[in-house]
């Protein structure tokens, strides 16, 4: 969209700089004048909210690292030290911990928005795939961060997840020892997870850069999924969407602040306020809520399939759940992007959303009785949605007529 440059250097200093390093031109074209569809709704503000979340985590994280000690003897106490002794540490630590949860709230909304409006479809496949990579890296970062307070859930969460590696045939045990730096989770594990937890957010930030770069090639998708056809379909990013995004950020910060100030521990688990003990397993291990859907899929496979035992089967299913997202652009071949104009897709989409919430709920329940049955049903639908529903709908569904342009749809709504 940079073919029509909107920047003219104002004075000789700007001209001098523009000939050497055109940062001002870049900012003007991509952060201010970038032509953005004029019909974006509030679901489109979560990209900016996520940039804010990443910023919050990086800033609070760097501060926490100034007071934290990554050693099994001292880690648990150093987190308490941050919460009790460090000036403002109580709030900064709470913002970081609550921030992780809020990050995933925004991340899931952002992903489900893309799923509904078909934002993964051509020519935006790379944007979507980079987004899935960001999601996977964020999961890894959050998981390693949860180890650092060295409580019981930290330790046993790490034990359970690192045992996933041992499901790999032949070399699994060696890979597990390579990851942990020992035969069990211990001091070497804590040290390297701290190092990687500090590194990965910057890798994420770099991929976010690519994600936005890829976005700025075709420009934004929009709620009707019809491409921008002329300049009156768009408005400048600044001030129209900078202000809209800022407003959404402020609204997003209200529940965020409520958690930080009034219930900083409500999203955590009481067992994590007991220091890690390699001799005692908590009665009921649950991962953080944002990992539960995938944890349910891992646990749902409790039967052998041919030569694949249940443990490896669970790991394959969990990895497969992420692979579904990566190959999604080629599973849904319907030419219509927006779910608004797909009468059948809509139903399956909302069923998928409810199913995802159910997977989250089931991950927190004990693996027994009716829960194991429901976990299998929900896991099955997760895969059926991608592998059967989307490819079949693409062929048999008759979409509703599309508006001819963004302007027509906006004006039509105003007159209706």
């Amino acid at each position: 969209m940079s073919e029509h440059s909107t920047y003219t250097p104002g004075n000789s200093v700007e001209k001098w700089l523009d000939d050497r390093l055109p940062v001002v031109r870049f900012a003007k074209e991509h952060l201010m004048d970038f032509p953005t569809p004029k019909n974006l709704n509030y679901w489109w503000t979560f990209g900016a909210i996520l940039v804010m979340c990443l910023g919050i985590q990086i800033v609070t994280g760097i501060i926490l690292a100034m007071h934290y000690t990554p050693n099994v003897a001292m880690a648990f106490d150093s987190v308490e030290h941050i919460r009790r002794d460090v000036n403002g540490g109580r709030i900064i630590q709470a913002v970081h911990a609550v921030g992780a949860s809020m990050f995933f709230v925004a991340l899931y909304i952002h992903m489900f928005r893309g799923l509904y409006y078909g934002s993964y479809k051509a020519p935006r496949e790379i944007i979507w795939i980079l987004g899935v990579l960001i999601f996977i890296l964020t999961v890894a970062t959050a998981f390693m961060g949860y180890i650092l307070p060295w409580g019981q859930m930290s330790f046993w969460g790490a034990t359970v997840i690192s045992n996933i590696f041992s499901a790999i045939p032949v070399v699994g045990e060696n890979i597990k020892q390579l990851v942990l730096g020992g035969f069990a989770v211990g001091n070497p594990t804590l040290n390297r997870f701290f190092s990687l937890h500090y590194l990965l957010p910057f890798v994420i930030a770099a991929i976010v850069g690519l994600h936005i770069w890829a976005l700025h090639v075709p420009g934004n998708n929009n709620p009707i999924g019809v491409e921008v056809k002329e300049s009156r379909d768009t408005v400048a990013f600044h001030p129209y969407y900078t202000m809209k995004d800022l407003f959404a950020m402020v609204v997003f910060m209200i529940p965020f602040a409520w958690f930080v100030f009034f219930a900083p521990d409500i999203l955590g688990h009481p067992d994590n306020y007991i220091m890690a003990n390699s001799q005692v397993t908590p009665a009921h291990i649950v991962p953080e809520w944002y990992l539960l859907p995938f944890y349910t899929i891992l646990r749902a496979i409790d039967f052998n399939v041919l030569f694949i035992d249940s443990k490896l089967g669970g790991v394959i299913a969990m990895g497969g759940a992420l692979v579904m997202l990566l190959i999604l652009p080629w599973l849904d071949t319907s030419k219509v992007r927006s779910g608004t104009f797909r009468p059948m897709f809509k139903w399956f989409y909302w069923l998928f959303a409810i199913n995802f919430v159910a997977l989250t709920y089931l991950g927190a329940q004990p693996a027994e009785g009716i829960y194991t049955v429901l976990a299998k049903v929900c896991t099955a639908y997760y895969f059926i949605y991608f592998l059967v529903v989307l490819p079949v709908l693409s062929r048999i569904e008759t979409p509703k007529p599309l508006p001819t342009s963004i302007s027509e749809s906006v004006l039509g709504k105003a007159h209706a």
Partner: protein
Amino acid sequence: MATQAEHSSTNRRDFLYVATGAVGAVGAAAVVWPLINQLNPDASTLALASIEFDVGAIPEGQSVTITWRGLPVFVRHRTAAEIEEARAVPLADLKDPQTDEERVKEGHEQWLVMIANCTHLGCIPVGESGDFDGWFCPCHGSHYDSAGRIRRGPAPANLVVPPYEFVSDTLIQIG
């Protein structure tokens, strides 16, 4: 003729390209390997690889949990009834077939020594519980019998018996 030679098959320059590239790749791998290998268990971790433990103090029908290589290890002094129960199980009933004799040392059948991590995802099973008078893992519901063999649930294998031997009648060396 010369043009034809340049276009056909391989010449000296191609060989030099491939040879240089290969040496470079080997060099890069040689540099990367130590950077990965540092993640493997270090000398101080490996130094804990062997311990001795006196089982004599454990009364019949009780267990202790000790630490070996950072892993919890169950040492159980089994009752005669438990041993009998374990031996009565037909191998066909087992998911990971192993006789009771294979899981203990000859002449010391009452001592069961096992790594206390569930073979599913590593939680510590609870002793003297489950449907088979052995262990029950509360994390994902695996049941083990009185020989520590998997009987029901998601775990793929029996509780692991570490390498150990009886140094004397009551002293075991693990590792």
